[in-house]
């Protein structure tokens, strides 16, 4: 079939010249053939998989090279730095970023915000690179990056790192030290996670931006000068918690879209770019299997670009390993991808069915990769092979496999930490966590078992409590005799004790080590997150369902929910096919819980009815319902029926039913438990006491000791005679009757998303009617908005009350579910917001500024929950749009502070 080869070559050549020109007609013309003849050859080539048809008329063709997408290695920086999304989502950001950078003499400062992993630092670097390459920015211009989170546990040192330290400023400052500001003088200082700067640091930064002066830590006067362009980066919700004065100094505040919001084409460019980086590292071409490419393109990547990158790195390492074992080239296959990298049902519009990556050959290695000369995983593998040259094949294979596994676990750990556990520092000193993390790695290597993040947390907490106790010089009380664990756990505990002695100067007695060993024993039961009930979120709209599912999975720290978006334009057939796919993918499922916006069309219901698993359909889905459902399916004793009943109770108009009446008689009790009944347990007791709201002061909390071997205690049963135990919280899972056990980390991580919070609320005895209100009916939720509509109409000047109410109506449900306030509280908050909005309108329309009463509370000094802020930001944004106004920067913080349940608001 020589003729066909001719056709193929011609087609490829034409495609090079102009990809849009390749039609049957143009090919025929070029080869001087009849159109029908050319067409026949082309069809043969399509059949043979060598070319493909593109959609549309006239049909255009494009060449395909085998079954893979090739990525060439790159060896030098080329002139064209592809700025992914430069013409799409990021155009504005880059333009402004360049403007900021190109006037170093009078710097404009830039604040980037975006979700974790959205690529803020990547963008900052790229803007700098573009400025150097295309805009004559002197390549010697310093570009200094620093992540404020690295020193978040030690604010003083953090400030010192940035501004420099004067000798003697604090113990250990034995010599003068330059700061990053000095290093970045005349150039750019990129401060990631800038919100971690303490306010003193923010003020110093403000002086630097404003007047170009600063001082080192420990110096009295501001007499150092520097001209520095500051690029700050922060996660979205926190932007408002920077000091106002500093916030105003940023000439541009730019939001980076998350990967979710990027176009498919941009995502494909990212994939390509990261592959090329890997290709560069290994010094050879990488081929990407088409299926693997599709998966990368379509999987739900909640950790954003950062995660996409590490997933690609994992896949490449796997592929490289296979190549070393006798492959002819490095091919990334679907099996190399982490398990969760697979397309999900939400990608209904599968628009890119026929697109394949072009061969990109000019992507430079990332700047970050150049900065440090660490051996890459590929170099490590090659070195390892050289070292083991003599070893037999099996051993070699084993060793290399281990190397890769270690690499993967590093990558995974890094991203997990980033996503979930940024705030350990609140409870545990950094040095302890550091030792624990290091030892966890050692233990994995030497003893061959994994210490998971929760265990690290529990161990850290325990050790912290032990140290605090020693420091406070409280006598160590009677310590119960406890049994030994399996030898490997005991050895692990010993390793940890040695490390704590060497690194933290902490000496543990023998029985303490025995105790630690118990904490190394995995308790899969308590932390088992695999659910046997599938939770499927579905909603009309491009991404309503998937974003709810994303947020819930993020909050739960586990991908327990799946989603099905139903874009209005998508044909039912397509949605149906995806639903079927979802069902097929959950073969282990004991049932499906389908949370939907409105009742599903008959076609979809039929699919469900014919499925093997039972299902329950719950309408009026909202975020809280999703999180609730996810949380419940992770608890083993729930049934499909049980969950669906409880979830339906979350729907508007139906109150969350108070718990069994038996509870009413006995006072409520929470037991906090640990092996000693003292340290961790009393820490937890204290913590919970602090977070209980005014209405829950009746709850009795007691620290209880748990026998490490029996994992039980008679004390609990004694307590049950007198009290009703509503929950057991602690580091050691304890199951007594139906009392729910809640692991300590869940309570400490975020009160609001903890089951404890719900339990306390739902067991609250019937509210005692306040004496002063007894002559009037208490307000019901259903009345609130009508009432305040009348009330606000009485007092506002400019506000369109019915507009205000109609916007609130759209959000009231999520607000209620999130904050769990009662109608009275809600009235107060909504009236307040109404008046605030009225003020803003007046200021805007009259140009006058109404001095508001002096604030009693310094909002910035409060630790405001990011979730609360986020929700208020959404509501405020909706009100801003409806009223064409702008709230003051701290409005969301103000509303958040006002919505707090406990006494955080106490005036200063």
């Amino acid at each position: 079939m020589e003729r066909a080869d001719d056709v193929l070559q011609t087609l490829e050549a034409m495609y090079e010249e102009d990809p849009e020109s390749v039609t049957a007609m143009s090919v025929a013309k070029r080869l001087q053939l009849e159109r029908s003849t050319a067409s026949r050859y082309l069809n043969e080539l399509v059949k043979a998989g060598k070319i493909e048809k593109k959609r549309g008329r006239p049909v255009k063709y494009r060449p395909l090279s085998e079954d893979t997408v090739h990525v060439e290695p790159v060896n030098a920086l080329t002139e064209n730095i592809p700025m992914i999304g430069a013409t799409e989502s990021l155009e504005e950001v880059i333009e402004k970023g360049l403007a900021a950078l190109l006037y170093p003499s009078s710097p404009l400062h830039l604040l980037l915000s975006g979700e974790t992993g959205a690529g803020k630092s990547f963008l900052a670097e790229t803007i700098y690179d573009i400025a150097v390459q295309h805009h004559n920015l002197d390549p010697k211009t310093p570009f200094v990056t620093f992540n404020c989170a690295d020193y978040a546990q030690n604010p003083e040192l953090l400030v010192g790192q940035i501004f420099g330290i004067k000798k003697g400023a604090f113990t250990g400052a034995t010599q003068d030290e330059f700061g990053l500001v000095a290093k970045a003088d005349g150039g750019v200082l990129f401060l990631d996670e800038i919100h971690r700067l303490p306010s003193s640091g923010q003020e110093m930064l403000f002086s630097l931006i404003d007047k170009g002066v600063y001082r080192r830590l420990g110096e009295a006067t501001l007499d150092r000068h520097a001209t520095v362009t500051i690029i700050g980066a922060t996660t979205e919700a926190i932007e408002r918690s920077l000091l106002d004065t500093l916030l105003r100094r940023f000439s541009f505040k730019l939001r980076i879209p998350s990967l979710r919001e990027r176009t498919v084409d941009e995502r494909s460019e990212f994939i390509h770019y990261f592959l090329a980086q890997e290709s560069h590292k290994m010094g050879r071409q990488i081929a990407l299997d088409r299926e693997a490419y599709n998966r990368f393109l379509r999987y739900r990547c909640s950790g954003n670009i950062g995660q996409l990158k590490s997933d690609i790195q994992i896949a490449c390492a796997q592929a490289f390993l296979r190549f070393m074992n006798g492959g002819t080239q490095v091919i990334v296959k679907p099996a190399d991808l982490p398990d969760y990298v697979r397309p999900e049902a939400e990608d209904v519009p599968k628009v890119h069915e026929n697109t394949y990556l072009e061969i990109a050959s000019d992507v430079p290695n990332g700047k970050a990769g150049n900065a440090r000369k660490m051996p890459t995983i590929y170099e490590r593998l090659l070195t390892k092979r050289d070292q083991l040259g003599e070893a037999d094949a099996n051993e070699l294979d084993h060793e290399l496999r281990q190397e890769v596994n270690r690499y993967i676990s590093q990558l995974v750990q890094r991203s997990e930490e980033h996503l979930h556990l940024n705030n350990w520092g609140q409870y545990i000193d950094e040095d302890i966590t550091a030792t624990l993390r290091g030892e966890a790695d050692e233990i994995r290597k030497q003893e061959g078992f994994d210490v998971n993040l929760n265990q690290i947390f529990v161990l850290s907490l325990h050790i912290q409590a032990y140290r605090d106790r020693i420091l406070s010089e409280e006598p160590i009380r009677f310590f119960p005799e406890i049994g030994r664990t399996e030898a490997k756990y005991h050895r692990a505990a010993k390793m940890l004790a040695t490390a704590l002695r060497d690194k933290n100067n902490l000496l543990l007695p023998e029985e303490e080590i025995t105790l630690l060993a118990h904490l190394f024993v995995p308790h899969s039961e308590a932390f088992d997150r695999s659910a046997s009930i599938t939770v499927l979120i579905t909603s009309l709209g491009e991404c309503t369902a998937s974003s709810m599912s994303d947020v819930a999975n993020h909050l739960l720290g586990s991908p327990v929910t799946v989603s099905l978006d139903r874009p209005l334009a998508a044909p039912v057939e397509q949605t149906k096919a995806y639903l079927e796919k979802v069902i097929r993918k959950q073969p282990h499922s004991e049932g499906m819980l389908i949370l939907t916006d409105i009742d599903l069309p008959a076609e979809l219901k039929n699919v469900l009815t014919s499925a093997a698993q039972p299902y329950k359909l719950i309408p009026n889905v909202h975020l809280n319902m999703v999180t609730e459902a996810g949380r419940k399916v992770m608890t083993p004793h729930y049934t499909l029926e049980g969950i669906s009943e409880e979830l339906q109770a979350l729907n508007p108009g139906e109150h969350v039913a108070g718990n069994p009446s038996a509870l009413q008689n006995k006072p409520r009790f929470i037991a906090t438990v640990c092996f000693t009944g003292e340290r961790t347990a009393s820490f937890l007791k204290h913590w919970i006491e602090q977070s209980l709201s005014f209405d829950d002061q009746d709850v009795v909390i007691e620290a209880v000791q748990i026998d490490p071997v029996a994992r039980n205690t008679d004390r609990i049963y004694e307590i049950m005679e007198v009290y009703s135990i509503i929950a057991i919280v602690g580091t050691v899972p304890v199951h007594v009757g139906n009392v729910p056990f809640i692991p300590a980390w869940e309570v400490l991580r975020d009160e609001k998303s903890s089951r404890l919070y719900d339990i306390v609320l739902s067991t609250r005895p019937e509210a005692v009617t306040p004496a002063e209100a007894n002559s009037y009916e208490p307000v019901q939720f259903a009345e609130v908005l009508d009432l305040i509509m009348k009330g606000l109409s009485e007092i506002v000047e400019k506000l369109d009350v019915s507009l205000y109410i109609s916007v609130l109506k759209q959000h009231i449900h999520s607000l209620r579910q999130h904050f769990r306030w009662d109608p009275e509280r809600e009235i107060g908050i909504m009236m307040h917001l109404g008046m605030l909005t009225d003020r803003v309108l007046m200021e805007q329309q009259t140009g006058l500024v109404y001095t508001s009463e002096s604030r009693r509370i310094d909002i910035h000094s409060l630790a405001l929950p990011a979730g609360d802020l986020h929700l208020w930001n959404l509501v405020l944004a909706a009100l801003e749009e409806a009223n064409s106004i702008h709230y003051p920067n701290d409005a969301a913080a103000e509303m958040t502070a006002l919505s707090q349940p406990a006494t955080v608001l106490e005036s200063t």
Partner: protein
Amino acid sequence: MSEQINVVILCSWGATSSSLAQKVQEAAKERGLDVVAHAGGTGEFKEKASTYDVALLEPQVRHLKKEMQKVADNAEIPLAMVDQRAFALMDGNKVLDQVLELVK
């Protein structure tokens, strides 16, 4: 009931209490009662509690009630939550009734 009654309505940052105080003031004027309605934040109440005869707390700061009650007890004045319905409706008359009930 010949003496002047000084009532203070407390909210967190003065956004709504001044409106409600005004409503109460109007109601009192209409009924010819010698009532002066003030608005204030919970912070300053600590210092000025004893200058009032009665204090009402708005619903959005209910969580501060315990603390405020202590302040009021020290100043020996009654303190209560504003009736929620009356507050929502900005019903000055009803709140005035509540005030009169409390100082009885």
